[in-house]
């Protein structure tokens, strides 16, 4: 479970135009020199990413504690997914300092199962384990898909496919689980079921979770902490200290919702 320096991102094009907060120069500091042993934690400093002239992440700082469920909230185009892709190691063009745990899993907005591999083979793919098939079966049982282990992915419903994708992410026993709006394409009823499933899995396995979403209610229903991304940085950081299961009609919920919607710049007339 030891934390490991997975990626140090240094000087891409356009980097160093302005230094990130807390840094004397535009150059990245080698994370290996500054990192203390801090298992399962994510530490991001001065993260910058621009697409052409458009700066999406402007010197972003973020820390995630091990085992905590954090929602990353932001408007469309605010750079939520960009940040997640950086944490997943999928964006070599970003600059700054990023430390993530060794085992990181991702569930994307689309399930992204390989259609030519049966469900169990999809879950077991790339698994470093003496008996990947057995582990895949266990994981599928956990998400309630045991019976569909031999099915082709194209025959699954949207909810089933997304559960298979969750099994594929969790079977790797991640220290950090990245969820990129994985509920976005599901119908409302399925979404509620999968919310419960994700919470149950999180409670069992306790990875640090970063859930990217634009849905304030979803963030408040699931997360311990909500960070709001705006202007390329963390604009607000809210601890959600509400008992679970959460009552979406309660006062605390309503106040937090109000604050987060304001953060997102949603006009609140007629809302509460």
């Amino acid at each position, binding site marked *: 479970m030891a934390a490991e320096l997975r990626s140090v991102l240094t000087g891409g094009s356009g980097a160093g135009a302005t230094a990130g907060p807390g840094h004397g120069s535009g150059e990245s500091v080698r994370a290996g020199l500054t990192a203390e042993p801090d298992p399962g934690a994510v530490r991001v400093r001065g993260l910058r990413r621009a697409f052409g002239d458009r700066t999406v992440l402007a010197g972003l700082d973020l820390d995630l504690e091990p085992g905590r469920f954090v929602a990353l909230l932001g408007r469309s185009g605010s750079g939520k997914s960009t940040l997640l892709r950086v944490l997943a190691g999928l964006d070599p063009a970003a600059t700054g300092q990023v430390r993530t745990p060794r085992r990181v899993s991702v569930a994307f907005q689309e399930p992204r199962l390989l*259609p030519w591999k049966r469900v169990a083979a999809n879950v077991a793919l790339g698994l470093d384990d003496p008996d990947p098939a057995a582990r895949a079966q266990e994981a599928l049982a956990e998400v309630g898909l045991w019976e569909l282990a031999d099915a*082709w992915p194209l025959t699954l419903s949207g909810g089933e496919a997304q559960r298979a994708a969750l099994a594929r992410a969790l079977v790797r026993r991640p220290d950090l689980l990245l969820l990129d709006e994985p509920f976005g394409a599901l119908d409302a009823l399925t979404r509620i079921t999968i919310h419960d499933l994700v919470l149950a899995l999180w409670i069992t396995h306790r990875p640090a979770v970063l859930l990217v979403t634009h849905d304030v209610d979803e963030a408040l229903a699931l997360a311990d902490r909500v960070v709001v991304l705006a202007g390329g940085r963390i604009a607000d950081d809210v601890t959600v200290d509400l008992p679970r299961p959460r009552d979406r009609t309660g006062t605390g919920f309503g106040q937090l919702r109000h604050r987060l919607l304001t953060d997102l710049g949603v006009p609140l007339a007629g809302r509460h």
Partner: protein
Amino acid sequence: MSTLDSGIAAPPPAVGQLAPPPLPTAPSSSTSDSPPAAPRARGGRLPRGLARSVSPVAAVLLWQLASSTGVLPARLLAAPSTVLRSGWELIRSGQLGEALLVSLQRVVVGLVLGLAIGLTLGLLTGLSRWGELLLDPIVQALRTLPFLGLIPLFILWFGIGETPKIALVALGVTFPIYLNTFAGIRGVDARLIEAAATLGLGRSQRWVHVVLPAALPSILVGLRYALGIAWLSLIVGEQVNATAGLGYLINDAREFLRTDVVVVGLLVYAALGLATDAAVRLLERRALAWRQSFVPS
């Protein structure tokens, strides 16, 4: 580049100025080969298959009638009954089997060679940007040559034995395999490759588990085209100085005005084409079982 790209994107490659392959190869293997469902006759007195066989059977009967009455002289076209009898004779004497074996061998060797070359080139250009920059222009340039027109050169280079015939088949096969391999690889969903990367798969593992399986449907379409072209190349190649094989059988029969034997030879060519196409379709059904929802059984 853009013109080349657009040429690649289209699954049915226009290879040379050839007539289409002698088989009804649909542009996409995933769609049904049957024509758009015609409104079924109400009441449906005849089963569909039977109804569809009415006109071909009538045509054969008409042909027989024309031959029997002398309207169609045998020196132009032999009667179906004569064709059948001659076919049976050729089978019994072993002449047909022998010719078939020779021709099959030419096609198989040429096909294997062309497959190997086409796949290798397609993989090199599909998987590597350098490969594309260096190889694709020259393959595309060669592709524009009407390859059947190369026969005179091939005779000069390879003589008149088996080599020019096999080379012709191999050359014809190479291009559809190459184009479809390349297009198949480049058409792979980048999001799947990304997902595989997050699962810890390295470059070569991503090729094996993601890129090649994703390209396989396209490669198999290429194979079906290649087979059609292989038979066509063989037929043309065998017209040139053959001393054995189906082409020789046909040419020899022409010398003696044996139109019945010519027709037998043509029918055998057609049957071979159909058989190999069916074999690839079976292969598709097996290898692409994951698409089962799209493949009509």
